[in-house]
Every structure is written in C-alpha cells, then in structure tokens.
C-alpha cells in the first residue's frame, strides 16, 4: 500500500509533470475571499460557515463566513466568501 502510494508520486515526479494532471488535489486561493478546488471527490458537508470536501488524501475543511459555492462542476468547485481557514484531515 505504501509502495503503491509512493509509485503514484514517482511517475509525475520522475517525468516532471504537474501532479494535478494525475488527479492530485489543486487548490487556488485568491486573496481571502475565493478558493478554487480541482480534483476533489465530493461535498461531505456544506453550510455558510463550514465546507467539508472528500479528497484522495483524506478530507479538506474550509472555515469561513457567508460562504457560497459560486460554481460546482465536475471535480471543480469555487467557493467565495470570507475564508478564515483551510484544514487538512488525514
């Protein structure tokens, strides 16, 4: 399992390719009011102050105020609002 996980990172690292092309999570933060997340696996929980996403490596929690999902498309999500914290759950 550990080897499989290591192999998954070896190929893109070895070929100098970007990880998101292989399904790695990509987070783009603009200021403190917009977050774009690509390659997530779904929404676990959503409210105005808390958003929890499922990702390949575990879970990602976003804390904030007056948050809204601006765009929800296949594997792409854009959250806007007053973002206070991003927290990984492994």
């Amino acid at each position, binding site marked *: 399992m550990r080897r499989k996980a290591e192999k998954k990172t070896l190929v893109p690292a070895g070929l100098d390719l970007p990880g998101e092309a292989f399904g790695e999570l990509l987070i783009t933060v603009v200021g403190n009011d917009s977050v774009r997340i690509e390659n997530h696996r*779904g*929404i676990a929980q*959503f*409210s*105005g102050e808390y958003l929890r996403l499922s990702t390949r490596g575990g879970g990602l929690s976003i804390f904030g105020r007056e948050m*809204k*999902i601006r*765009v*929800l498309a*296949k594997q792409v999500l854009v959250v806007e609002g007053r973002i206070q914290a991003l927290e990984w759950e492994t």
Partner: protein
Amino acid sequence: MKKRLHLFDGTVTLAVRGTETERLLNACMRSELPLRNIWRAEDGSLRLEIAWEEVERFEKLARVSMCETERVSVRGGRESRKRLRRRSALGLLAALCALALTASSLFIWEIDILGNSSISEGEIRRALRECGVAEGCFWPATDVELIRSQMLLRLDQLSWMTLNLSGSRAQVVVLERERAPEMYEERTGADLVAACGGVVRDFSVKNGRTLIERGQIVTEGQTLVSAEMEGSGGSARTVRAAGSVTADTWREIRVQTNCGAVSKARGRGVFVTVGIQAGESRINLLSNGRKVLDECDRIVKEYKIGIKGLFCFPLKLVVEIYRPYESGDLIPADRDGCCDRAMAALADEIDGEILSSASTWQDGVLRLNAHCLENIALTKEIP
C-alpha cells in the same frame, strides 16, 4: 459577462430541502449538471441557481436523493419572452420606435454652419436649399462633391467648403475668400493725386517729382507728386510715384434719421401657445387664451428634440409668447448715439484722425462737420 449570458438564457433559483442535500450536489456533479451560486439560507434550505433547461433533470436527481425542490424565482430568457408575448403591444411599440428612429436618421434635421464671418448664415442656408440640402432632405441621395461645386459657383465669397453628414446632422464648414493684394506693374507710370481738397501740412515722397509745398491749398484730383522725372542726360523718364501727403481736410457728413420710436407700455396678460412642429406642419397642444394680434410682441422659442451633436428628431417644440402692449408717446431719436455712429464711420473711412467735430440737427437730418488730419495721396496710373 457570464452573468449576462446566463440571464439571457434564463435562470431558475431553487430551494432544496432534505437531509441529504450534499448527496444531491454530488449527484449533480457526477452527472455534469452545472450549478451556480449555492448557499445555505436562514431557514436551513439550500438555494441554488440553475439554467432553465436543466431544471427537469435536477428535479429528477432531487427525487432520487430524497430532497424536495421548490422554484423560488425565474429570471431572464424564456420568462422575459413569455411576459413580452403577453404585452405584445409594448413590444410592437418598441419595435416601431426603433424603426422610426432608424428611418429618421436617414433624413437631415439639423444643419450647422461653421467658419463664416462676413457671409450670413441665412445666405448660406438659402444657397444650400437651392442645391437641395435643407431640413428634411434624404441624405443618402446627396452627392457631396456636386453640392460643393454648386455652392462655390453660387457664392463667390467662398473659396472652399465641405459638407459632413453624420446621421441626421449636417455640418457645413466654409472658408471665405480673402481679397487678393493689389498688384501693379512696377514699370508703369503713376501720379499721386489728392483724394480730397485740403491744406498740405507735411509730405514724404519716396519716388516721383513733388509739385506741392507745405501750407499749399490743394483741390480734389490735383496732382501732388508727378511720375515724370528728369533722367540722366536730360531725358525724361516715367516712374511710379510713391509717398504720403498729410493735409488738413474738412469733411461734412449728412445722415437722415427717423423721428423717433413709439413708447410701449405693457398691457394686461400674457398668452402662450405650445405646439409640436414637424417640418412645415404644426400641431398646437396648449393655448391659454385668445391671441391678441393687434398690438403685441410675439416671442417665438424653438427647442429641438434630440441629443446635441449625436442625433436630432424631426420634431421641434415651439413656444409662442404674446405680450400685449399699449402705444404711448413718441420718444425722440437717440441723437448722441447717431452722432457717435457717424463719427465712427468717418474714422473708418479716412486714413488719419479726426481733430475736431461739430454736429447740427435740422428736420431729422444730422449734419456732421469734422476737421481731419489725413493722408490724401491717391495713386493714379497714367494710361
């Protein structure tokens, strides 16, 4: 931009209630059903925006996820078109207005004239009318080059003109002809003669033979400087006399004036008429009484309808104000003003200055006698 596009297509705002709303969102994501502006409302429901044509698909997914949906609002696209269909008259009116505006922009409703100083605007407009350019004419049929040529032939005072057409506005730019300088052949002989009689005070001769002395009395037309001069070896030669002769002259001007003006006392009431004028036709909209035509001042104000510099409608708002008056006593003519104007005209005419003047009035005739100091030399070519 995207917002406007979505609005054009039509957007529905839905409220979703249920225990597994996140499951519904994930289902939409997997089915590639795009959702926008998802937020949690105060009543706990999930609000989101979706394209009009995706609503049915979304409601099907909601039923599978055991969620209830409710349409909160519909904006743009199909809904607007539905409303417009119910108000077909409004749409038709808007279309007619657009058509009228487009059609009216094919005709000239405003003519601006620039660059004229000695030629009056009325004269230029009259000439333009004769060439076929007037308010209400169809400008696409206008041949600008032909009109330009015709205008230059009709008005000699113009040396250049152009006609710029922009929508319903025509701009005429003119350049007036400048007087050509006096040209003469240097070898032709010319005498200097007196333009009017007087007493010579001083003279300065650059070329020619002087025939006068200081203090001499000269009459009008008398030769002051002759072109005939003695050449080398005793032979005569003819030159072009040049110079100036300053003399004291006495001028008299007679001006016929009118007896005076009738004084006016304001009468009672003011009558106003408001109307719309389209071309030569006029429709009166408002009138607050009978117009007094016998003794009244008529003030007409016209207001063009449109945006200055951009376009102009073929309509004008015309306001006519009638102020009645009662005739009073005769006011004598402004003698001082008349005298000043006569002096100004004399000063323009002579090449010098007015030293003193005296004026008398008799039977409405002003007699102005002025003592002037002026250059009386006038070039007269020898035939």
